[in-house]
């Protein structure tokens, strides 16, 4: 009876091909809350009896801690606890092989801003006053700010006390083919030295953590983290608590970009102070502290030799790189590999060698920033190609085409590439920028530059070795016609919650409003490794797809049984279950879910995803940087260089990015624009440096002194989506969050050359540097060593 009633025809329905969610334009599932200002970030959380914590930091770049006297602080009214390094002595590190930091300094402070003690007090002002009242006796040690000087210094007194090789944090030397022979045979060898000065993430939300201990002993830590699972593990390790007594929750984030992808001092401190006081404890970094926490893009000095045939083919490439790591390892082991391993695509190379050394220095530790480890070598690689194109008289886009690796290929370092839309990316930016017509006619001062790149969609091997799935998702349907999705994935603003809703909506015929996505709560959601290396769309997306498809099968089966038709005739779309061959036969999705629940009990399914393990070379380190799939990008940048002031005005960047399949177009375009913006900012203005002349203080730890571009400074950005679906990705999807950043810097550098004939091999391309290079060029022209650039001999 109810079956017949539900079958009753309400109105004619047409099933439109592609009526699902994939490839549509969506409002992000959390957009309206954010726009209305009602999203509750970590710092918005307030618990009864909550205390505030502050960390006392070292004013010395390198100093032995002789003694800490906290008695005056503890005697202050309103101060409940003071902890030092002795209270949290277990070393940790995001990479299990390099645990080389403690929550607070034990015996030595390693940079200006290193934490030495923490206070919990009734309010922030009392906590600040208590920090001031803590007396720390230091014995200053000679600091080392230059990585090559650090590497040359004695092995006996390394900066980092846990270091096993002096100030050498990591060294990787890998060679594929015979590089020296390749270079010797090459008719053209371009040699270049490049310097990337280092930048930070500048997420608008400063790091924040809140800890609370239940009477049962359960410790809950809310943190603005992008790796709740690793934080969970490291908290257990450092606090000496079993993991089941700790719950980590990631509230909505105000940006991360890699700057929140490992545990930080504040999370351990609030947890320890909450355990010590029995009261909730919160700590919000000041902007200055965010600069000290850093983990931004590593400064790299890169010496490259690239050999080319007369036709512009890359015969061999040799890269020697010094990496300035700062005080701790962070992800540095991976960074050191990435600095070489990710440079072998999208081009065919005859032979390739890289030798990268990462040094400890007395500076805030570097780590992963959007495009981890590979933005700097991409700058060097792509400028080398541009120099070769000029030397050989080949169009720079054409030179890249000639070296294209293609799809279903293997890189020189033995990574298996699946789908590859790089040629289409080049075509798109070439056409959209008017490259061929305009580049030939732009006047002196105006120029176009191109660069290409590739990036990973997660890594095949997780950070800590294990054979369990890298991603897992649970989905529950209920009789009201809704779906609940549980995933450990961290939405850091990149839209991964929306991506999960799109997949569930696609498979189950639901609008995004009917899907609740619950993420990043270690008590409620399955383990996920976090938001880094652009892994979520591919890995968590695949896990979600598996679970959603299982549920779809249950639902369509129950409907089909009631209608007496084969299961594959039932389509779920637009809140309905329909008979594909007779759309007038349809029923509300809520009813379809109810039928399935009648048949199967509670409708819940899980999906998990693990990576292929056969897509890399069989050599030590061959797994690092190997990914299930690779994205591809090309940029053309147009610049105007003011020859009198050296100011580079980036007018437009055309960004073509192969994301496999755009699951949600606006989100993909947003990632492409944001990436290009971030790269442009690093090219033109950002500088994360310390001042060696003043004891290694940060050159300006504020958003007034660390300049990120405003809207007025930002170029026109044109996002051109390219889709080369990869069998490894959900619906063919690959990443879009990091890859599109890579070509920004070299495309701008190459455009500057096209505009005025100078090579900017040192970042950032600030006006004084540009002006000096212009003066050198003019002097060389006056001496007859160079022909006038683009000025027809005038």
């Amino acid at each position, binding site marked *: 009876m109810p079956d017949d009633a539900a079958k009753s025809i309400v109105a004619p329905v047409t099933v439109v091909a592609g009526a699902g969610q994939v490839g549509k334009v969506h409002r992000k599932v959390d957009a309206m809350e954010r726009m209305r200002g009602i999203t509750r970030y970590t710092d918005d959380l307030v618990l009864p009896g909550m205390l505030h914590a502050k960390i006392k*930091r070292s*004013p*010395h770049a390198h100093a032995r801690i002789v003694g800490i006297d906290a008695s005056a602080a503890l005697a202050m009214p309103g101060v409940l606890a003071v902890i030092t390094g002795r209270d949290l002595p277990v070393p940790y590190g995001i990479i299990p092989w390099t645990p080389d930091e403690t929550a607070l300094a034990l015996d030595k402070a390693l940079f*200006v801003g290193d934490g030495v003690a923490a206070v919990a007090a009734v309010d*922030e*002002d009392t906590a*600040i006053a208590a920090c001031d009242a803590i007396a720390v006796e230091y014995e200053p040690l000679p600091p080392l700010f230059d990585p090559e000087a650090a590497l040359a210094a004695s092995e006996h007194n390394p900066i980092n006390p846990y270091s096993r090789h002096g100030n050498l944090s990591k060294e990787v030397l890998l060679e594929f083919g015979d590089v020296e022979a390749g270079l010797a045979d090459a008719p053209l060898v371009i040699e270049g030295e490049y310097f990337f000065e280092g930048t930070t993430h500048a997420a608008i939300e*400063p790091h924040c953590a809140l800890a609370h201990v239940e009477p049962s002993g359960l410790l809950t830590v809310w943190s603005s983290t992008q790796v709740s699972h690793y934080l969970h593990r490291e908290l257990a390790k450092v606090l000496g608590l079993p993991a089941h007594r700790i719950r980590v929750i990631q509230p909505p984030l105000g940006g991360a970009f890699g700057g929140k992808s490992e545990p930080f001092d504040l999370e351990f401190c609030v947890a320890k102070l909450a355990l010590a006081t029995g009261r909730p404890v919160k700590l*919000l970094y*000041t*902007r*200055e502290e965010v600069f000290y926490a850093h983990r931004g893009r590593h400064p790299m000095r890169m010496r490259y030799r690239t050999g080319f045939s007369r036709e512009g083919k890359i015969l061999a490439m040799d890269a020697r790189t010094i990496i300035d790591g700062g005080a701790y390892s962070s992800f540095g082991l991976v960074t050191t590999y990435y600095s070489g391993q990710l440079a072998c695509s999208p081009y065919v190379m005859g032979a390739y060698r890289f030798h990268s050394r990462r040094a400890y220095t007395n500076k805030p530790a570097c780590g992963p920033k959007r495009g981890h480890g590979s933005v700097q070598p991409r700058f060097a690689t792509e400028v080398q190609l541009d120099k070769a194109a000029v030397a050989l008289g080949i169009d720079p886009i054409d030179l890249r085409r000639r070296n294209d690796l293609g799809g279903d290929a293997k890189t020189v370092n033995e990574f298996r590439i699946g789908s590859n839309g790089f040629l289409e990316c080049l075509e798109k930016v070439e056409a959209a920028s008017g490259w061929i017509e305009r580049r030939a006619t732009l006047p002196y001062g105006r120029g176009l530059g191109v660069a290409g790149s590739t990036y990973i969609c997660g890594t095949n091997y997780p950070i800590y070795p294990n054979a369990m799935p890298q991603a897992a998702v649970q989905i529950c349907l209920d009789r009201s016609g809704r779906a609940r999705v549980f995933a450990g994935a961290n939405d850091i603003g990149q839209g991964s919650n929306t991506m999960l809703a799109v997949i569930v909506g696609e498979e189950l015929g639901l609008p995004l409003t009917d899907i609740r996505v619950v993420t990043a709560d270690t008590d409620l959601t399955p383990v996920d490794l976090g938001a880094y290396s652009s892994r979520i769309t591919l890995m968590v997306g695949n896990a979600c797809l598996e679970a959603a498809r299982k549920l779809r099968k249950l639902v369509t089966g129950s409907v089909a049984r009631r209608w007496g038709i084969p299961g594959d005739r039932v389509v779920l779309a637009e809140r309905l279950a329909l008979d594909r061959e007779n759309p007038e036969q349809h029923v509300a999705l809520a009813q379809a879910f109810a039928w399935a629940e009648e048949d199967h009990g509670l409708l819940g399914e899980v999906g998990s995803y693990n990576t292929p393990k056969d897509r890399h070379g069989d050599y030590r380190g061959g797994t690092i940087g190997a990914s299930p799939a690779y994205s591809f990008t090309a940029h053309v940048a147009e610049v105007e260089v003011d020859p*009198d*002031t*050296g100011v580079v005005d980036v007018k437009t960047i055309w960004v073509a990015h192969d994301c496999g399949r755009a699951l949600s177009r606006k989100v993909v375009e947003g990632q492409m624009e944001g990436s290009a913006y971030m790269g442009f900012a690093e090219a033109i*203005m950002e500088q994360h440096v310390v001042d060696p002349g*003043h*004891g290694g*203080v*940060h050159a*300006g*730890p*504020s958003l*007034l*002194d660390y*300049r990120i*571009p*405003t*809207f*007025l*400074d930002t170029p026109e950005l044109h996002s051109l989506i390219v889709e080369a679906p990869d069998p490894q990705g959900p619906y063919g999807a690959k990443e879009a969050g990091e890859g599109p950043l890579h070509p920004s810097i070299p495309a701008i550098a190459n455009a500057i050359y096209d505009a005025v004939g100078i090579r900017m091999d040192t970042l950032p391309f*600030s*006006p*004084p540097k540009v*002006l000096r290079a212009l003066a050198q060029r003019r002097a060389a022209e006056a001496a007859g060593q160079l022909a006038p650039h683009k000025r027809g001999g005038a």
Partner: protein
Amino acid sequence: MLRLPGFEVATPRTIDEAATLLARPGARVVAGGTDLLPNLKHRLEQPSLLVSLAAVRELGEVVVDARAGVLRIGAGVTLTAVSEHPLVREHLPSLADAAGRVASPLIRNMGTLGGNVNLDTRCRYVNQTAFWRSAIGGCLKSEGNVCHVVPGGRNCVAAMSSDCVPVLISLEAAAVLRSTAGGRELPLAEYFQADGREHTVRRPDEIMAEIRVPLPTGPRRCAYSKWSVRKSIDFPLVSIALRFDLAADAVDAAITAVRVVVGVLGSRPREVTQLDAVIGQPLSDPKVAEAIAARVHAQCKPLENVPYEAPYRREMLAVHTRRAIARLVAEG
């Protein structure tokens, strides 16, 4: 987030009430607060009482005083209002331009003309947190006794960074100060002194009530040229005000008087001198721009007190001077 220190706030309704409050020890005047509050967070000042001018209506007027031949702009007029005010735009376009280029729209909505004129001097070694300064041992303007800009220097050279001040001096503006002792009026050209710790002659108990800018009495061309790394938010790194009085209302008319004032050098703005050679020359003569740019370059020596190398900024003073004049000429 950085915390403000504790202080009391008073909100008087008249200048006289405000002056009475300001006579108390530890009192400090505040208008928009866009300069003061960050400095308080950085613990550069610790006043016990902030005397807010927000409710003092007399400070908010812009009126033409035809008899005195001046435009009177209340010190409490916001920078947005100055930049948009029809009288300012009509008579003093370079001032409207400068006011409209201070920081960002949100800051201009809060910040006032009086506040911008009294903007504290700035230095890369001063405008940092108390913790940061403790790492370098402070300096002459903060907790120490050395200068990091001029090693061995005994005089603070923190930079006068107001956008409006060079323009106002070029327009021969005067400031009206009020205190319980009465009032005084003095030319802004005499208002600043070469000490970054106390860079104006205003006594702590004095309130800047208004700025009086003489109305033009003949044809002239004025400009303000600012360069900063970003097109918004930033303080100026290059800051030049130019004023040319002309024999007739055309750019090829002869220059009868010229004033060039440069900011962001040391603690006081510099009025460029020895410009007599251009008097009598047509503004549109390219030699005029060259001559003035050369004088600017010769007389203005930026210091390493603000970002970007001083030699670069010195070179840019000449470039931007030349360009500002070229723009005036092109505009006709």
